[in-house]
């Protein structure tokens, strides 16, 4: 060990000594490849090229478009709900449809939009490119994963057309209510929902397998784990979480399906439902809640961690500065991921579980605030003394910092068991989780789309439209959710179809509801602008130059842009540095791509920290 180390030091001092002299090929030297190049599947027909494609980039786009399409439905549902809340006198919706829309909106946004978009969409697009692989490890399985997702979406949407309509059980699907007569869709919609989730989990497992193996085993030469962009760290950790968390959802769904279809009593206790005594006996509704949140809490981080990773990269690239505290960022991602399995019951402080659990889970929950806070500090310290380009991705990243900070801090209210008692099940909770895992990740999604759009299409998105979109979305959604917290303080409970005859709710609260609804409609409409920009720019957008943002990570260094099948042409890239070499002292440019050999950037020197 010591010999080798000294040898390296020597080599280093030599190198520093004649930095000014002509480059020697020596310093670019990389040992011969020990591993064979990846074998690639080539499609032969139109069907296997455009429909059942096995190219991860293409699957990523398919995933993203399907998820966004489903998400649009979720958006429309939210409009319908908000109109009901603001103008209850109109009789716009029946209570049962209101609850069905609440449920479908929640489930669609959390699972079918955000999870699918971050992991299926960005995961497929970016993992092979950023790791320097030609494709995913198992392209065929990857293709199956996408089509399982499509079937899951179709089954979910089919529930709108069965008798009784989709389930109105709330996205948490708590039994016994989810499968008894008092809830809309209790015998048709809920079954389709459960089947759809089971399919989603099956599909995701196939995809997740690919993401994990590709990140671990198929990286380019020189690409150590600690040279990976934080985007990959975020997506990778989120995938690992999902592989361990989704089984809990699967167990819950399977057992509830049996309770509903066969009449078993896993979760169903003896009960009298609307005057009729049911045959169930002894089941435990709280057991379902434990299973659900053992999935549900990591699920929050399955959405958040990729967003954390992506936003770190956006901030670094667009402020032309090294991400601050890369190692801390990696530790925080991994730490948050690990801790997220020990906090689930903070969703259940007032669920009737043993109240003494409250002490444990309040403590773990507040501990998780520490690594999360570190991430926020490191983002803002990345801006400090940067050279901040106010491009669209940067704008959305700044929007993310503000909304995530706000939502994260209100998490400290709800995580602290005592404070949760008066606030749980009120609009404070609704405002909190929309801010922290709705708006914040969605802003990252937009930033990421503006950022990587040229990589996919070879064209830039329209900047002016993008700016209008940003300001309306950011200010608008802040105006929706910030005041909503205060409705929660008043005590307005969530999941209420209407509440306006309550003595303690005065006119002003009603007024606030109208204001929020108007903001919702405006923000929603602004998304149409985005959609127009998304599709129109593919044809009309300005042609992008290669590596338009002057980024370092590998996805921009492919021989062609957009990258072709197999990504790297003849030979996969060799990696000589980490992706955050921005503004290196002594270097000519303010960025050094990861695959640029040392001989080309002689002069650039980094002080030892």
């Amino acid at each position, binding site marked *: 060990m010591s010999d080798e180390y000294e040898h390296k030091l020597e080599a280093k001092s030599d190198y520093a000594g004649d930095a000014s002299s002509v480059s020697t090929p020596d310093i670019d030297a990389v040992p011969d490849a020990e591993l064979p190049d990846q074998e690639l599947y080539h499609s032969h027909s139109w069907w296997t090229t455009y429909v059942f494609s096995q190219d991860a980039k293409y699957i990523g786009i398919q995933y993203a478009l399907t998820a966004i399409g489903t998400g649009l439905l979720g958006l429309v549902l939210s409009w319908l709900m908000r109109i009901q809340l603001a103008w209850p006198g109109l009789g716009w919706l029946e209570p049962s449809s209101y609850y069905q829309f609440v449920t479908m909106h929640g489930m669609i946004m959390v699972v079918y939009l955000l999870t699918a978009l971050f992991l299926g969409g960005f995961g497929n697009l970016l993992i092979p490119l950023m790791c320097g692989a030609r494709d995913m490890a198992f392209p065929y399985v990857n293709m199956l994963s996408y089509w399982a997702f499509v079937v899951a979406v179709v089954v979910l949407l089919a529930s709108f057309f069965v008798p009784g309509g989709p389930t109105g059980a709330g996205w948490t699907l708590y039994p016994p209510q989810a499968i008894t007569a008092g809830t809309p869709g209790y015998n048709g919609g809920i079954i389709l929902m459960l089947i759809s989730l089971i399919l989603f989990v099956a599909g995701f497992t196939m995809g997740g397998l690919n993401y994990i193996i590709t990140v671990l085993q198929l990286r380019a030469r020189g690409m150590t784990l600690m040279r990976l962009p934080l985007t990959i760290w975020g997506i990778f950790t989120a995938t690992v979480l999902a592989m361990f968390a989704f089984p809990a959802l699967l167990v819950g769904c399977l057992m509830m399906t049996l309770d509903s279809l066969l009449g078993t009593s896993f979760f169903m206790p003896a009960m009298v439902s609307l005057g009729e005594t049911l045959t169930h006996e002894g089941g435990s509704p*709280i057991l379902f809640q434990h299973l659900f949140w053992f999935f549900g809490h990591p699920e929050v981080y399955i959405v958040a961690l990729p967003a954390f990773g992506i936003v770190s990269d956006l901030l670094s690239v667009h402020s032309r500065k090294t991400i601050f505290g890369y190692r801390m960022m990696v530790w925080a991602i991994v730490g948050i991921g690990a801790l997220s399995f020990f906090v689930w019951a903070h969703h259940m402080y*007032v669920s009737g579980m043993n109240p003494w659990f409250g002490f444990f889970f309040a403590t773990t929950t507040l501990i998780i605030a520490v690594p999360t806070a570190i991430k926020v500090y490191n983002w803002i310290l990345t801006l400090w003394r940067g050279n901040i380009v106010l491009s669209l991705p940067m704008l959305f990243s700044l929007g993310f910092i503000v909304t995530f900070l706000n939502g994260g801090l209100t998490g400290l209210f709800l995580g602290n*068991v005592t404070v949760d008692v008066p606030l749980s099940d009120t609009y404070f909770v609704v405002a909190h989780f929309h801010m922290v895992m709705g708006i914040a990740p969605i802003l990252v999604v937009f930033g990421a789309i503006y950022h990587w759009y040229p990589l996919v299409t070879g064209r830039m998105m329209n900047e002016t439209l993008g700016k209008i979109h940003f300001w309306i979305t950011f200010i608008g959604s802040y105006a929706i959710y910030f005041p909503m917290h205060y409705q929660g303080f008043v005590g307005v409970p969530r999941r209420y179809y209407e509440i306006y005859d*309550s003595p303690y709710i005065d006119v002003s609260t009603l007024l606030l509801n109208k204001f929020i609804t108007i903001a919702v409609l405006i923000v929603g409409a602004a998304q149409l602008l985005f959609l127009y920009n998304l599709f129109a720019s593919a044809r009309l957008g300005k042609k992008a130059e290669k590596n338009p943002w002057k980024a370092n990570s590998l996805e921009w260094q492919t021989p062609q842009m957009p990258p072709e099948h197999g990504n790297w042409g003849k030979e996969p890239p060799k990696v000589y540095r980490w992706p955050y070499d921005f503004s290196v002292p002594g270097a000519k440019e303010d960025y050094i791509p990861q695959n640029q050999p040392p001989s080309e950037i002689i002069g650039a020197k980094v002080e030892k920290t």
Partner: protein
Amino acid sequence: MIVALSIFLITIGSVAFHFWSPWWWTEVASNWGNMDDTILLTFWITGAVFIAICFFVAYCVWKYSYKKDRRAEYKPEDKKLESRLTWATAIGVAALLAPGLVVWNQYVTVPKDAYKVEVFAYQWGWKYRLPGEDNILGKTDIKYINDENPFGLILEDPNGKDDLLVDAQELHVLKDRPVKFELRTIDVLHNFYVPQFRGKMDMVPGIVTYYWLTPTRVGDFEVLCAEYCGTGHYAMRGRVIVDEEKEYKKWEAKQITFEKMLAKNRKNDNLQLVKKDK
């Protein structure tokens, strides 16, 4: 410039909204004023962090906006700064957590002198049961529920005979006396929630959950169901009236015992049978 200014204004606006908007919690009517205090403490700490970070971001965006001839600083990490921030955060978090846990401990520890009231929830309404003279609530079972015995008391349990059954949406409680709500549901999850009392707990079929409080002011408060329970969830309201001793006794005297109710119901049934026979 505009970006920095907007972030600055959003921060100022949020603070202004907090202090001057009309939306705030209802006046507390129980001993759980200390929950409000923990919320206020949390507000001070998190509010300071929110303002500091937003201002910092606004400053950075204004000060370090892109210039072609400038280079960003190259600084991969700063161990000292990072560990300081970590410790500061840890201390802040501990300051939030400690009082929270103290209050939670009070919340889950029922005082010995608390009297018991059973809250009985169904889709979609409330009923109540008082223990009667013996101060013991009789045992119940779902299987015993029928038209004669809507509360499902076990007939063989002598403790249930003198229980007072309140078959109405309205409950009276005593001012300044700790009361333990024993929460029972016969169908799905519900949650007995009075905004002014602050307390909350789900009701779960198959088990009896509880929480306690001491009402501190006389008044008429609305009960809400705070756990989604199906289509009628939003309409599941009741009333709690906090009384002084005298009014309470009057109300209590009007309630009938289980024994009497059973006798009455049986008589009605018999009458109906007789009518049918005719």
